[in-house]
């Protein structure tokens, strides 16, 4: 147990040294470390609870995705059957009126169902289930297709959110998918996320439609709006009757910039369409001179100006009694694009910088105090060997930081608690060894034999006992989020490093001391 070949000793010391070196980049600022190789630049990331910032978890509204899918399915069904000139009634569930047509209808409708691609080419899944029963054909989107649609929505949403947030200039935001239908947004350093939440919360779907003048809004409210129109909230709090048909969609916008109206000096948003949008806009305005058309944002009418003359240039202006901030925001939203489905914030954790700093200070103080107390205690209890244990523990903590840096892991306040706890637990390994040595000495062994026996007997126990704590840390890592996960990480890494130091470093130090001093008695 006390015998180390030169190679082994060197390897151990080198490993410990290298791992500890990885902890160094944390003490240098970004600027100084820029010219170092990539591996050396990795450093610990401070969690949001230490840095201050906002953590937002967003969920895609699956029912909205489903509704939209059904709507486009209905449109497709109408198109296919009309083209094949097969009479029918219904929308996504259709009844074929002439028996002779059933086969043809089925085969045409089945074409709407496309195979879905899996990881290795086409999987068995298709996008639609088409079932026929006595002339009644039912088309249902498959669950797999819906999940895929939701997944795509999330990908699109992430890009759009990125664009929106980048305009705000927050430092290094993290925007990533979480699970099938969720998005995690982390904004370090943001102390008031309300502006960001506003920007993310808006779907920003912009449509241009005609106002329906066939009846007034009040009449429509009391009776029923005509089949192709709907009542929407208007600018002044009342309702407006708007045609459902979309003349030009916001998707054709190519630019939007905040500006000021030349005559009224009101904040406005100036926009420009691409060629398709410009053409449609020109057609719509030409056909409807003198009538009001509505600019609808997220199903709310923000403006309904009267068309004075056809607009052929494909650009225009939206004014809606905006403040400068609102005009700015709208321009950002239009430039970034509309979200495919509404997003809801299901979890928010925001920590102000004041609390973050306090937490770091508290964490540091606790670490120093804990370490100091443990070191003193070990020294008092075990004397010289206590000193060896302390050296091992200090290197242990340095190694923990090294590994955390290498993994670019996140350090949270519970994480710091985990490190302090690890110091207490790491000492246990050494204690096991030393108590065993004491026992062997009492049993009458010579100094060297006692030390040797102490190590060999204790190591199996050390392994067993640490593994159980490690399992607990692993489970915690899997089920935890954020700060709790940080605790699991430091605890787990701490256990691994303390196993390493107990098995190797402490043994090495003691072995070399024995070799140099050749003691007769064990000063323990």
């Amino acid at each position, binding site marked *: 147990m*006390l*015998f180390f070949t030169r190679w082994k000793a060197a390897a151990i010391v080198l490993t410990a040294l290298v791992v500890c070196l990885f902890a160094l980049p944390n003490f240098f600022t970004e600027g100084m470390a820029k010219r170092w190789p990539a591996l050396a630049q990795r450093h610990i990331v401070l969690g949001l*609870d230490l840095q201050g910032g906002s953590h937002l*978890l967003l969920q895609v509204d699956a029912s909205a995705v489903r509704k939209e899918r059904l709507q486009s399915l209905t449109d497709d069904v109408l198109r296919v059957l009309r083209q094949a000139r097969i009479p029918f009634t219904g929308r996504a569930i259709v009844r074929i009126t002439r028996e002779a047509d059933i086969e043809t209808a089925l085969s045409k409708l089945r074409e709407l169902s496309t195979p879905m691609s899996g990881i290795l080419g086409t999987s068995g899944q298709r996008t639609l289930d088409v079932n026929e029963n006595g002339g009644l054909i039912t088309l249902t989107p498959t669950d797999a297709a819906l999940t895929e649609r939701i997944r795509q929505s999330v990908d699109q949403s992430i890009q759009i959110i990125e664009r929106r947030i980048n305009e705000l200039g927050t430092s290094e935001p993290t925007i990533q998918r979480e699970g099938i239908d969720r998005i995690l947004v982390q904004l370090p350093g943001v102390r008031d996320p*309300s502006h960001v*939440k506003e920007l993310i919360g808006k779907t920003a779907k912009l449509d241009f439609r005609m106002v329906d003048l066939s009846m007034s809004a009040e009449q429509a409210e009391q009776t029923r709006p005509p089949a192709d129109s709907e009542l929407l909230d208007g600018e002044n709090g009342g309702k407006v009757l708007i045609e459902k048909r979309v003349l030009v969609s916001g998707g054709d916008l190519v630019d939007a910039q905040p500006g000021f109206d030349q005559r009224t000096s009101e904040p406005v948003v100036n926009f420009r369409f691409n060629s398709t949008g410009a053409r449609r806009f020109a057609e719509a305005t030409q056909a409807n001179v003198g009538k009001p058309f509505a600019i609808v944002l997220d199903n709310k009418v923000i403006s309904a100006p009267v068309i004075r003359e056809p607009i052929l240039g494909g650009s225009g202006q939206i004014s809606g009694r905006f403040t400068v901030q609102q005009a700015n925001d709208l321009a950002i939203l239009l430039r970034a694009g509309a979200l495919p489905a509404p997003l*809801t*914030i*299901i*979890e*928010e*954790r*925001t*920590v*102000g910088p*004041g*609390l973050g700093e*306090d*937490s770091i200070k*508290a*964490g540091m103080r*606790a*670490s120093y105090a*804990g370490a100091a*107390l*443990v070191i003193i*205690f*070990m020294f008092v209890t075990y004397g010289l060997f206590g000193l060896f244990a302390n050296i091992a523990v200090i290197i242990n903590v340095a190694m923990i930081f090294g590994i955390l840096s290498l993994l670019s892991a996140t350090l949270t*306040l*519970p994480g710091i*608690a985990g490190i302090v*706890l690890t*110091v*207490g637990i790491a*000492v*246990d390994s050494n*204690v096991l060894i030393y*108590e065993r040595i004491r026992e062997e000495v009492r049993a009458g062994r010579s100094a060297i*034999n006692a030390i*040797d026996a102490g190590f*060999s007997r204790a190591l199996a*126990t050390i392994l*067993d*006992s*640490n*593994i*159980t*704590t*490690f*399992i*607990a*840390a692993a*489970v*915690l890592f899997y*089920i*935890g*989020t954020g*700060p*709790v996960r940080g*605790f699991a990480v430091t605890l787990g890494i701490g256990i691994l490093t303390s196993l390493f130091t107990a098995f190797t470093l402490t043994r090495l130090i003691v072995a070399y001391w024995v070799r140099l001093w050749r003691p007769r008695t064990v000063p323990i």
Partner: protein
Amino acid sequence: MRFRRISFPVSALLSILAISLYFFHGLNFGIDFVGGTLMEVKTKAGPADLATMRSTLGTLNLGDFHLQEFGAPDDVLIRISEQPGGDEAQQQAVQRVQKALGTDFDYRRVEVVGPSVSTELLAYGTIGLVSAIGAILIYLWFRFEWQFALGAMIANVHDLVLTIGFMSLTGIDFDLTSIAALLTILGYSLNDTVVIYDRIREMLRRYKRMSMPDLLNVSINATLSRSIVTHLTVAISLLALLLFGGQAIHSFTATMIFGVVLVGTYTSVFIASPILIYLGVGTSRMGGAEEHEPEPEPAATAPQRARARR
């Protein structure tokens, strides 16, 4: 080992007490598990006037809410229960509160957990605890005989039960960090129990004729000094965390101290070992005089002797 006649009934009693506390008094579930909003605010000038704050918030129609001082007189923790209306309603509640309280406050921390996330966290937390217990049980089964595994589990689940009772009694916030504390207590207690079991196993092999109670006593005495030292070091670290770590992790640290230091030591010595007798370990032993087996010299000393000869 005589103590087992006292310790077992005492433990059983305390466990029943803890369980009934859980059912009648309940745990103070944090927003992680029941949803809601938590806001830590700090007055910009002077100590906080809780009464005024309460009446201001009372007009907002927020349902159940709770204010308390948090570590310092100018620091207030506001807790608002989950609002009906799904995830959207939680956000709106936060805005209303911020508007009502105005600019006199510094918002140190805002945490909002909607119904979707809270149900998940609760599920994960429970599954986590149960699977940790299961995983460790399997591991112990591999390393020791089944009686040891079972004994360790009973002793350590008993630890958890008493700790939960403690949390119920003190009304400490029970959230995700509490689950972290419980899992760590579990892992660490087992750590302890395993050390003692390891020693017992060694004794069982060495002293084939010693009666079980005597053998257990010897094992425990042998490991006692190690246990004391280790528990002291962990207690010191936790104490440093409690005193200096700040209010944010206060509940976590308090739970840990109770679970690891107080209860953990007690169960490892007074429950985990005697249970082995009840589980039937070493029933084939008769009481008798100690018997030493000659010990083989460890092979590692051979090179030492070889070097000394040189």
